[in-house]
């Protein structure tokens, strides 16, 4: 998964659907920790399309 910070609206929807709890909303900053299992929940839920699928060699 690729996160584009410039598209983020800081709503935390991504953090709420991450099954691993590795997305943290810290004020006006999203931190994506290591360990993504590529479940794509964040991609589906982000209202602003800030998450996109990574190419295979980027996962």
């Amino acid at each position: 998964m690729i996160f584009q910070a410039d598209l983020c609206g800081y709503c935390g929807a991504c953090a709420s659907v991450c099954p691993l709890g590795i997305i943290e909303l810290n004020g006006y900053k999203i931190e994506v920790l290591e360990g993504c299992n590529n479940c794509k929940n964040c991609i589906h839920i982000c209202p602003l399309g800030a998450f996109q699928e990574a190419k295979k060699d980027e996962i």
Partner: protein
Amino acid sequence: MKYDVVVVGGRISGSIASLYASKQDVNVLMIEKNQEIGTPVQCAGGVTRSFFETLQMKPPQKLICSEIEGAILHAPDGEKFLTKNSLLQGYILERKMLDKALAIKSAEAGTDIMLKAQVKDLIIEKGQVKGVIVRHQGKLLEIPSKIVIGADGVESQVARMAGLHNGHNPQDLISCAQYEMVGLDIDPEILEFYFGFNKAPGGYVWIFPKGENRANVGLGVRYGANSAIYYLNKFISHLKGKIVELNVGGVPIGGPLKKTYSHGVLLTGDAAGHVDPVTGGGMHLSAVCSSLAGKIAAEAVINENLSSSYLSRYEKEWKKRIGKNLQRSLKYRALFDNMDDEELNSLIKFLNTNDFKSLSTLSILKLAREYPKLFLVLKNIL
């Protein structure tokens, strides 16, 4: 630094919970991750009169943008249904100002407020939550407390840290985007809702007036091939207004969490899933549940009983007040989830004509047998 009650989250649920705890003369700290209360806005600002009645407050006139008298439902085929049922009457508020007003009320009652503070973990001893670990102004602080109330929204870290929730299923979250717009041709007393798979798959579009020509125009989507902002940009392309604000958010519509309390912890607001699964509205439920959370947390401190069994009275109490409504709303959501555009067209036609024949070919009739009160409710509400 040591408190009786720490409330995590400084929006309306946090402010109401901390206000009701502080009213009982216990030491209360409210922690907010942002540097100001009320932003970024994640709400359309609509609230029923019951919100203020529950809080025994007069609606502050300076926060009211418009008073609502009714609503128009737009079917996917363009058919409109206007209703002026008293249950729809309420206010569109300047939400960020409401959050701040409630935080001020809580502070005046004695609550300390810590801004730009991120809860990193709970202090847990022998299974009992005994405070929070917070990052604040470059330092990691341990703040002991007897009770922690998680009012930290849909992405609640307190719920995860307390082992009460492990994240939402995306099907139970609606992805929302909203513009505040000016220069619109609207009726300032009427809400508008648009339905249809092309407009807002799995959700609906709302126009909530904030004055003569100003409104929050937003939508929520699920199962969409594109993000909420894509559908919103498409919808507003035929409107003449100008954009003055953008808000986004995820709204939990899967019903309340299985458990909203633990040893030394209570959850409230979006963090507890206290949101109506059909409308996505939660402020009226926050008023009920968050005031209970604050009151019962303070009572637990005063009675020196912080056990899970004592705190279970919070869940018993909110279930008594709103539990049945939430469960019924969940069933209706399941019903609406199964309706396609043709069925929505027929339903709105039915509401206009009151003619049950228009429903005879619909699969909702079969479903309605399982929920016979639905039509009664629709007729009463609409």
